[in-house]
């Protein structure tokens, strides 16, 4: 079976785009797990990844490539959906259900000024990083799952929230498994916030990119490849 060159090129583009979109959400848990610190990870990994995504979007925009559209509109949907997440998160924080104000913590880590506490610059950095993560999850959502079914966004958001609860970030806060040692309100707030994020993401992504199927499935023609592989396997069995 020969895989077309166009498919290979698209596959490579997709892998690179997904990797670049994943950098943002990964550097915080990586740092909290002890694999580097936020400030250099952001400087040497996050900023180049952001640049790469911008360049990819610009280059593929004219050709109306689904990858370029997923980056722009998926990213925008994710960033806006983060506002919904914030409404829930901030409310939870004010009510004492959250151990700390995470965007502010991310900001002091990004600017390497934990001992001095937050500043205007670190708050800006933390919020920018927080919303970039929302955009990144939006890009990944549009590429992997498509925007056809709005309810998929809700499931996606809850999965992301669950991932956060078992991540090294929560472990580093010292609040126990699922944050239950701190308060039952913690996992409830986190999951509710991410559910709202996912719901908004699903709706907005559908609005911006109506009925776009999973880019991975269509651009890589994975269904055709699966059928081709299955045919080859069956053919080999027949010869035996």
């Amino acid at each position, binding site marked *: 079976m020969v895989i077309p060159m166009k498919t290979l090129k698209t596959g490579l583009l997709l892998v690179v785009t997904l990797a670049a979109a994943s950098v943002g959400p990964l550097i915080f848990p990586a740092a909290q797990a002890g694999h580097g610190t936020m400030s250099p990870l952001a400087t040497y990994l996050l900023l180049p990844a952001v640049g790469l995504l911008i360049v990819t979007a610009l280059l593929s925009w004219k050709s109306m490539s689904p990858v370029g559209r997923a980056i722009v509109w998926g990213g925008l949907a994710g960033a806006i959906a983060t506002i919904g997440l914030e409404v829930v998160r901030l409310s939870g*924080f004010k009510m*004492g259900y959250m*151990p*700390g*104000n995470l965007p*502010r*913590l991310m900001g*002091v880590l990004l600017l390497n000024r*934990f*001992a*001095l*506490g*937050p500043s205007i610059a670190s708050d800006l950095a933390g919020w920018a990083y927080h919303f970039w993560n929302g955009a990144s999850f939006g890009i990944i959502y549009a590429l992997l799952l498509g925007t056809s079914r709005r309810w998929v966004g809700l499931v996606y958001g809850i999965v992301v929230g669950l991932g956060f609860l078992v991540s090294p970030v929560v472990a580093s806060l010292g609040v126990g498994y699922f944050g239950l040692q701190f308060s039952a309100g913690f996992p409830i707030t986190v999951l509710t916030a991410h559910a709202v994020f996912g719901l908004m993401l699903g709706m907005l992504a559908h609005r911006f990119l109506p009925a776009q199927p999973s880019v991975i499935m269509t651009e890589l023609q994975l269904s055709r490849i699966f059928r081709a592989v299955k045919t080859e396997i069956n053919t080999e069995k027949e010869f035996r």
Partner: protein
Amino acid sequence: MKVKSMLLVFGLAVTGLLARSASAQEARVTVESTKSYEQTVEKLKGAVNQGGMMIMGQVDQGNMLSMAGLKLKATLFLVGNPTVGKKLFEQDHGVGLFVPLRVFVYEDKDGKTYLSYDKPSALLKQFNNQEIDMVAGMLDQKLQGLAQMATH
């Protein structure tokens, strides 16, 4: 007889604990400031400079804990002098646990501002070194002067 020796051991242990607690209390110096928290911090910075020392670092616990929703005014300062530090480190590298010195300025729940530190002579006497003890004694006096300047 057995009961008597047990009581003796118990008595000695309690005395030891009380002595240790009293010793820790003697090591701690807390000075109430006549100024506000912000003014005390500014005066401390000036006093450190005039006293031939430097602020080598600071931990703004108040600002840090604001991320956890706590309203607090408190800063820990690491105060020292490289030349003096060198003399101490030449005697025993273990002094690094206590040097630079820690000076803590905070506003308590009563709204008053305090400056607090542990006497270097108390912290460093565990090294059983005459040279270190001499330098520590000098640092005691420095910090005392510093505390007075910053709080009045």
